[in-house]
């Protein structure tokens, strides 16, 4: 556990030594501000629903930029060799990396707290859906981050990792958007696989165990795949 924290802490701090974290945070905050306030006064309701709607989508595009370098860059520069030959297991490396990027994501989420807080000053805000929404963001975020980490473990090129993670993330987000065109059975299966479907139900304030388990399963599967990829180098 200590090794996971050490690796995670180093990763977290190193984000702030480079530009990526600042750029991503800025872009997320600016786009969120733009879309949120654009329609907020039109609706004239003291609700943070719109924020979660937009944030859920923005993060689908933003998080792959945070994860792209996690392993790909270490493999490109060779630092992975020093890291792995320290007395740690591959699983600890993967979990440490995940923890590090998750810490940054937590900072990003904390920075959005002024939105519901300012809405609350304008009217009578129902905090239930807000906490549900944040729980949904945490869960959807960990699934996206795990997918990004997995993509990063497959290559030593950050841009390829970014592209693969973006493709997968957008794919899982978009799944429930074209259901009307499909037969019912296929539609409900696709809907069930869609990130947005599970996320939006939480953002309404309904925390269903099935949604929680869905995101946790995706996270675990993706982390396991990353672990396999990292470990496979020993036998290649």
């Amino acid at each position, binding site marked *: 556990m200590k090794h996971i924290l050490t690796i995670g802490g180093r990763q977290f701090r190193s984000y702030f030594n480079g530009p990526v974290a600042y750029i991503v945070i800025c872009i997320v905050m600016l786009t969120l501000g733009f879309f949120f306030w654009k329609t907020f006064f039109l609706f004239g309701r003291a609700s943070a629903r719109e924020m979660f709607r937009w944030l859920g989508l923005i993060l689908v595009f933003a998080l792959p930029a945070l994860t792209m370098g996690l392993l790909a860059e270490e493999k490109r520069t060779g630092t992975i060799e020093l890291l792995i030959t320290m007395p740690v297991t591959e699983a600890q490396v993967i979990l440490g990396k995940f923890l590090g990027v998750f810490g940054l994501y937590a900072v990003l989420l904390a920075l959005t707290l002024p939105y519901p807080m300012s809405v609350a000053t304008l009217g009578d805000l129902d905090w239930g859906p807000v906490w549900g929404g944040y729980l949904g963001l945490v869960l959807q975020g960990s699934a996206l981050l795990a997918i990004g980490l997995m993509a990063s473990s497959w290559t030593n090129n950050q841009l390829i990792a970014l592209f693969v993670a973006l493709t997968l993330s957008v794919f899982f987000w978009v799944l429930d958007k074209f259901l009307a065109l499909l037969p019912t059975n296929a539609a409900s299966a696709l809907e069930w696989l869609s990130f947005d479907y599970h996320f939006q139900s939480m953002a309404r304030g309904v925390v269903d165990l099935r949604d929680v388990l869905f995101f946790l399963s995706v996270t675990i599967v993706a982390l396991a795949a990353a672990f396999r990829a990292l470990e496979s180098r*020993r036998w290649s």
Partner: protein
Amino acid sequence: MSDVMIEARDLTKHYGSVTALKNATFEVNRGEVVGFLGPNGAGKTTTMKILTCFIAPSEGTARVGGADIFEDPIAVRQAIGYLPESTPLYTEMLVLEYLEFAGKMRGLNGDGLRARLRKVVEETSLGDVIGKSIGELSKGFRQRVGLAQALIHEPPVLILDEPMSGLDPNQASEIRELIREIGRERTIILSTHNLAEVQVTCGRVLIISQGQLVADDTPEELAARAGKPRFIATVRRNGHSPADIREAFSKIGDAQSVKDRDGNGPNELIVEVVPKGTQDLRADIFQTAVAADLVLLGLEQRGENLEDIFRLLTTGTGGA
């Protein structure tokens, strides 16, 4: 723990259809500094990556500090300080931050970590750059940071992959000095393709070529094994023909072969005399020159150096 710190048994590694390492078997004892020598692509780095459990051998196994690389890779890694080729460090980190990280990863913390940090910073003379980011450092200083992180947990075994490559002669000699200092109490394997390095730093040489170990000896014994001394005499001919001069030197009792070539200017000749055994022929050469009415301008004894042996062992059919 026994005195054998590294024990490699039949290490073989295939990358697809390429065999990078074939049946490498060797032992390294406590306190030895072993030079791992071979041309690029010979399998030096592969061997080191196997010993540090970064990759697994296709066949064979190894033990480091008593722990098996398959059964207990964590114990193996704990026993090793490793400096991979080209010193991959997190360039955005400060030197101190990085060494702290390396220490924590090796299980140090609190006062123990601080004490070790002080010690390695002193050993590797990093005091002046401790607050700089690694990316700003010169290659020589980066190499010191690399060594410092490898030393931080006082490992009994150090594995250094090309620790002197890419350094200018001053930096290289500083690092060499440092390695010699460190090697007093530790087992070290270092790889290089620089022969002078090995002769100065290592007590033992393993030569590897095309994935196979072709020699395992001290630098001196290797030189002695492959090389007879040769004597190179430069003489002023005083009108004698090269054939006559060669003839005169051939009469030295212990001379096995005599060759000659032109020296500087028309009146000078360089004669190379190889003895039958390892006799010292300098006196005979001097007397022969005087007797044959030649002026001896220079006389030099040359042993076969490591470079010749290296070339002999690593070219051609792939070694013995």
